[in-house]
């Protein structure tokens, strides 16, 4: 079992999940827009993992369903898309965000759904999640810890860190000023650090 105080060389490889096609992107996009399945598969492999992590934080168990809907919308509208790789990434997460908003509205109109209640009941407490993230150091545990933040803070942190978007892109996606995005992200990081501190203190108290 790895712990956060172990040697960094023992930690999992921490290269970014946000893949980048860079110079290849225009050709891949053009081919995908013309219906080339292999080109679409490259776009999907590049952008789906960060999209799925974003949705896991915002939509929980519905993440994969929402991601499928997002990619279906991308497939339908890809021929009309104009822009480079950052714009494509921003468009993708904007579509995902709209789907999440629709999902929340639906859940708000149908509050008696058992799945929603079960999801709330199954959600672990923040302290437990922090301890799990520290002990397991898995991607899923780290995302679960981030998901314990207020939704606005968790969203901007995932968009910045996992999706690899800059402040301006995130501000356009969430419809806020860049300054507000920075403040939300910094508050979220401080909250995370505090929770990590609490968990570390507990671990220290237990182990000593």
């Amino acid at each position: 079992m790895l712990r956060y105080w172990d040697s960094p060389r023992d930690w999992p490889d921490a290269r970014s999940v946000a893949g980048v096609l860079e110079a290849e992107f225009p050709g891949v996009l053009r081919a995908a827009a013309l219906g080339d399945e292999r080109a679409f598969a490259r776009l999907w492999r590049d952008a789906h993992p960060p999209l799925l992590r974003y949705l896991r934080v915002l939509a929980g168990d519905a993440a994969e369903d929402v991601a499928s809907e997002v990619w279906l919308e991308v497939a339908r509208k890809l021929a009309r898309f104009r822009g480079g790789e950052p714009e494509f990434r921003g468009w993708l997460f904007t579509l995902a965000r709209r789907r999440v908003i629709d999902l929340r509205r639906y859940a708000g109109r149908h509050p008696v759904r058992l799945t929603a209640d079960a999801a709330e009941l199954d959600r672990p407490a923040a302290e437990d999640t922090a301890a799990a993230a520290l002990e397991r150091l898995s991607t899923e545990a780290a995302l679960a810890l981030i998901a314990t933040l207020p939704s606005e803070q968790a969203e901007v942190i995932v968009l910045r860190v996992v999706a690899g978007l800059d402040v301006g892109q995130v501000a356009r996606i969430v419809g806020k000023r860049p300054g507000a995005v920075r403040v939300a992200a910094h508050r979220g990081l401080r909250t995370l650090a505090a929770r990590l501190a609490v968990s570390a203190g507990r671990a220290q108290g237990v182990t000593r």
Partner: protein
Amino acid sequence: MSKSGGSPSEMPNLPRLSTRQLPDAASAEGLLAGRGVGPEAPVGQQALARLLEIAASPAIDWELAGEAAAVAAFARATSLAGCRSAGARPGTVPAFRSLARLALALTACVTALGSTAAVAGTLPAPVQELAHVTFGAPAPHHGVSVPRPAGGSSRQPGQQGIQAKDQPGLQEARGQSQQALPDAVAHDHQKVHCRRARSGGQAGHQEINPAGRPAGHPEASLDHPAGR
């Protein structure tokens, strides 16, 4: 520091995180940009940096498990949308579609406005006549703007219309608009009305109904401006 799996007694220098080690704005921005923190940073910030790095670690196998389904859905969507038509360049078909949509929207607007104007009887006389023949709109010159005859109201006491009775402001506005018509226009209207009345047709009576009601309808003449 000891490696994983060591007993607690083997970790005498276990770092303790405190709120003093929370990241400031500059270090938080570095963490968010993926620059991490330096080795001299407080342990708490190092832990936070590692946590974020793990959250952004490379794709896990199960995250890529849906590729085949996604590509199949893409193939279905593109075949339905006709994106595979030979030689089609991105953007050409959507541009044509947007033009077609614009034309359709304009046609719908013109039709709606024209129909409304025809029913209200405010179209130019030839067009109004055409609308009258085509779908029974009021005949020209017999809309709500027919002037009140000189000498005051000729409405019978029992003919007080429901609409006018309940809306005195509307009745007053009608009277004002009718009085504001030039005398020549009022004269023409009156001549046409008399000519049609002489021709004796129910048709003539029916045409001047501004609300498009049939002549035999009990309320047909109640709001008739010429009857005032």
